[in-house]
Structure formats: C-alpha cells, structure tokens
C-alpha cells in the first residue's frame, strides 16, 4: 500500500468517469448504460426511487461489482473509503471503540507496523470529530446504533482517502447524529475529497448536496441539485421503474464509450438521453 503524504489535501481526488456502464445480476440490468463525469472534489448525492440501482452503482464504484458492460475509470488503484449499507462489522466482537476505529489507519501501519502514540492521538481526534469523546475504551457491543455509525465514520476519517463512498449512511440513525455527520461530509469536501452518497431523504439532499445524480436504472438527470430534483425529472424517474423482465430481448446497444442516443430493442415508452455535464 502506498503511503499517503502527511497533508490530506495534497492527495488529489481523481476524475471519475462512468463509460456506458451497465451493471446487473443474472444478465438483468440494474443499471443501464450510464455515462457521467464526476469532477474531483464533488459532493454528490445519488438518488432515485426504490430499486433504481443506486446501491448497485455505488458498489461498482467501490469495486465490489464487475460491470456487465462499460467501465469506470479513475478509481483503479485508488484508495477509497467505502461504507456499505449493511456493514459486515460484528458488534459483538470483544474490542474497544478506539481499536475498531484504528482499523482505518491500515494504510499507515499495515499488518505489521507499530501502532504509536501518534496513531492513538489520531484515533482520539477522529472520535472527537464524530462526537464520541469518552467512548474510546468502551466495548463495541455497548454502543447504540447511532453511536456505532459515528464510530464507523471516525474510521472513515482515519482512512483519509481521496474518495469517500457512502450507501445510505443515515438510514438507521437519529436526527442529531445525521446532522453531525452531514457536517463531516462538508468538511471532507473542503479538504478536496470526492464524496458520493446514496440517500433517500430528499430534504437532506436539497439542504446539503450541491450535486445530484438522479438514477432510475438509467441516468435521468445529473447536475446541480436544484435543477436535477425538478418535478419533471422526478416524475420521469418514477415512470421508468420496471421490474426485471425475463422475456426482454437482448439489448443490441453497442458498448460505445462516446455513448450517445442509439437504438434499443427493449420495450419502454419514454425516450432517454445520456447527458454529460461539465461541472466547475
């Protein structure tokens, strides 16, 4: 693992590009021909109706899913801080909060490196940043849901990665926790990180996220939040929702990286376009 420079802002977040990305399970597309360009330092919300493929898309960005066709560029070999919707963390494990959070320092200490006082201080700082001062020596199994989520965020802080991907991070936490953690997202953006978050609470998105990508299997809209979350766009997104159709014919679209309008042989009514927005 490469050692990052001491100043986190110096590690440049990459440009992330989705090239005609199709993702799915059992050949059914959950995300269909999505192309987009995400500039470094974006604070981007990924929204859409239920089953729109948001989790699938962010999983692909995290490297957890291989595309059926198309590709993602800019993230290969990149350090990513990724918090899935259902963390595989075992809260009954006999460990204290500080040590769990310290997992985030793997990129600095690795498997065999010494864990110094400096590292300990970083852990305590991260815990303070998420409002968990005083919890350092508490057992993991004594935390509430909100406290656990804060601790996981502390680990993300310590990971200090240029790209942060979060899938429904506020799904099971109280308002106070989500407010505190949203402030953290802003801090990360100020540090130049690219932060992409799957959310379903549109109020949160409108209040905190400058950029939004509206997904309904296919890209509906991508750009400044106010423009994307219009009635028209949202209505279009609702209509595009279809369950997987076992009888759907093969999609004849070519995996063209330039990805403009092309003919499909599958049934759905509205037309769709692939929009690319160059962002400041």
């Amino acid at each position: 693992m490469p050692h990052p420079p001491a100043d986190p802002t110096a590690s440049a977040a990459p440009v992330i590009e989705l090239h005609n990305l199709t993702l799915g399970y059992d050949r059914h597309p959950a995300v269909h021909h999505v192309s987009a360009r995400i500039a470094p330092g974006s604070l981007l919300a990924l929204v859409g109706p239920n089953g729109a493929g948001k989790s699938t898309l962010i999983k692909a960005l995290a490297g957890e899913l291989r595309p059926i066709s198309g590709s993602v560029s800019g993230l290969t070999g990149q350090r990513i801080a990724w918090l899935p919707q259902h963390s595989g963390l075992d809260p009954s494990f006999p460990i204290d909060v500080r040590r769990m959070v310290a997992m985030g320092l793997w990129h600095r200490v690795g498997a065999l490196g010494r864990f110094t006082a400096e590292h300990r201080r970083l852990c305590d700082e991260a815990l303070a940043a998420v409002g968990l001062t005083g919890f350092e020596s508490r057992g993991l199994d004594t935390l509430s849901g909100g406290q656990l989520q804060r601790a996981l965020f502390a680990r993300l802080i310590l990971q200090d990665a240029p790209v942060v991907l979060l899938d429904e991070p506020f799904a099971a936490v109280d308002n106070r926790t989500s407010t505190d953690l949203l402030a953290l997202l802003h801090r990360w953006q100020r540090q130049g990180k690219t932060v992409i978050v799957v959310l379903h609470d549109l109020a949160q998105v409108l209040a905190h996220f400058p950029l939004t990508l509206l997904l309904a299997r296919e890209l509906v809209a991508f750009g400044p939040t106010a423009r994307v979350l219009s009635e028209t766009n949202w209505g279009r997104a609702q209509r595009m929702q279809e369950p997987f159709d076992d009888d759907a014919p093969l999609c004849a679209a070519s995996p063209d990286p330039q990805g403009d309008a092309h003919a499909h042989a599958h049934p759905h009514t509205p037309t769709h376009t692939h929009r690319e927005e160059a962002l400041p």
Partner: protein
Amino acid sequence: MSEPAVTPFLAWLMTNPLLGPLVEFGFMRSALLGCVALSLSAAPVGVFLMLRRMSLTGDAMAHAILPGAAIGYLVAGLSLTAMTIGGVFAGLAVAVGSGLVSRNTVLREDTSLAAFYLLSLALGVLIVSVRGNSVDLLHVLFGTVLALDDPALLLLGGICAVTLAGLALLYRPLVMECLDPGFLRQVSRWSPVAHYGFLGLLVINLVAGFHALGTLMAVGIMVLPAATARFWVRRLGPLLLMATALALGASLSGLLLSYHADLPTSPTIVLSLGAAYLLSLLLAPYGALRHQRPASSHLKA
C-alpha cells in the same frame, strides 16, 4: 549442593502432592511439558475459533483428517510420521477447499465445511475398508499424553512455536477478518492470508492435540478455555491470556488428579476444563446467573 541438604529437601519434594509426582517420574514431566506446549498454542487458536463462530469445526476436522491418515497408512504402513503428514494434508485440503467455496460462492463457511468434511470422511472410510482396520489407524493416530517421547515433544513444541509466530504475524489481519471482513478486503490483500493461515494453524493444532490428548477430546482444550474466558473478560487480549491460563491450569490439575485419584488422563484434563466452564457459567460476571439478575446498584452516568 552438599549431600545432607539435598536429601531432606528432595524427600519433602517427593511427598508434596503437587510437585512430588513431577519430581519422581520422567513420564509425568514429559506429559506436563507436552500439555504446556499444547495449551500455549491451542487455547489462543480456540479463542479465534470461537470468535469466528467455528467452534464445532474441530470435530468436523477430526473426521476430515481420516483419509489423509488412511493414505499415509497405505503408503507407509502404521508409521506415525506418514500418517501425521497425511492427516495434516487432508485437514489442510478440506480447510482450504471449504474456505475457497465459502469466500467465492453463496455457501457460508459452516455448510461448505460440512460438505467437504463429509466427503473426506466417506473417502477415508472407503480407503480403510478396502485395506486395513479403522480401529488400528485411529489408534495409532491418537496417542496418549503419558506416552510422549522426545520426537512427540519436539513435534508439539514445533507446532506451538509455529502457532505463536503465526498468530503474532497474523494478529491484526486476523482480528480484522473476524471483526469486519468486508473492510479488510477493501483495504488490503491480507484477507485470504489471514483466512487460510488461520485454518492452517487450526489443522496443525488439532493434529498436535490428537497426539497429546488422544481421541477427539483434543478439541476440548481448544474450545472450552475460550468459552470459559468469555464469561469473565470482554477484550481480546485478556481473552487470549485467560484462555491460555485456563488451559495450563486444567492440564496440571488433570494430570495430578489422574495421578492421585487413578483416573484416565485425557478425560480428566478435559473434565477439569469442563468444571471450570460450568463454574464460570454460574458465577462469572458475564455468566448465566449474573445475566439474569440485574446489578444491585448502578452509577449515575
């Protein structure tokens, strides 16, 4: 030391119920040494086994080892070395196979292991029934702690050293593998090393246990100390230390009880562990009874 000083001291030593048997008999010293080596290595492995929810694996592994021992027997007759090597190979093959399946398919660890060990067991029974007698085979593979000779002690010591070194090396990745395997996979390539490395340590410790304690009771010295310690402490470090201490204590008490009360040795050791477990279940801070009754007083914050 002058002659007159030695004799009364030695005489006192011999009558001491704790030290006497050890002073007087070489086989008791060898037995204790073997148990110490086994406790130091099997107990920590048992703690991780428990935390990974694989406590029943030991029993399954024991059956998986049979065809390896059978093939060793086919190749070299009733040779302890051949059968040990064969057993280790078979155990590792089953461990790695089930690990691969559980990591790359929809099957979880428990099912994939069950599938493999049953396959292995059937193969072993087949090989044995074609040539040889299963009672003989297992009899040679399973030793007794009272009969540990120098090569056996070297084997146990070697396994102990490898285990302790392996655990020290793999400690962080192993903890992360247990705590949040998805995270470990995300940030490093140590995940399979930790996973398979641990399974390897499990297999060699089982084989060591079979040599020393004989029969499948060897699994007891892995699982029982860990389970008992869990009732007392809630952090990994203290868990490891306490489990090891329990294993050492039970080995010593089992040996001495077997000596003073004329009881067979390995069941006595395992029952000592069992007694500690039951007592802890009832009396320990995180045991059953304390769990039911709330604390008599509480703090303000």
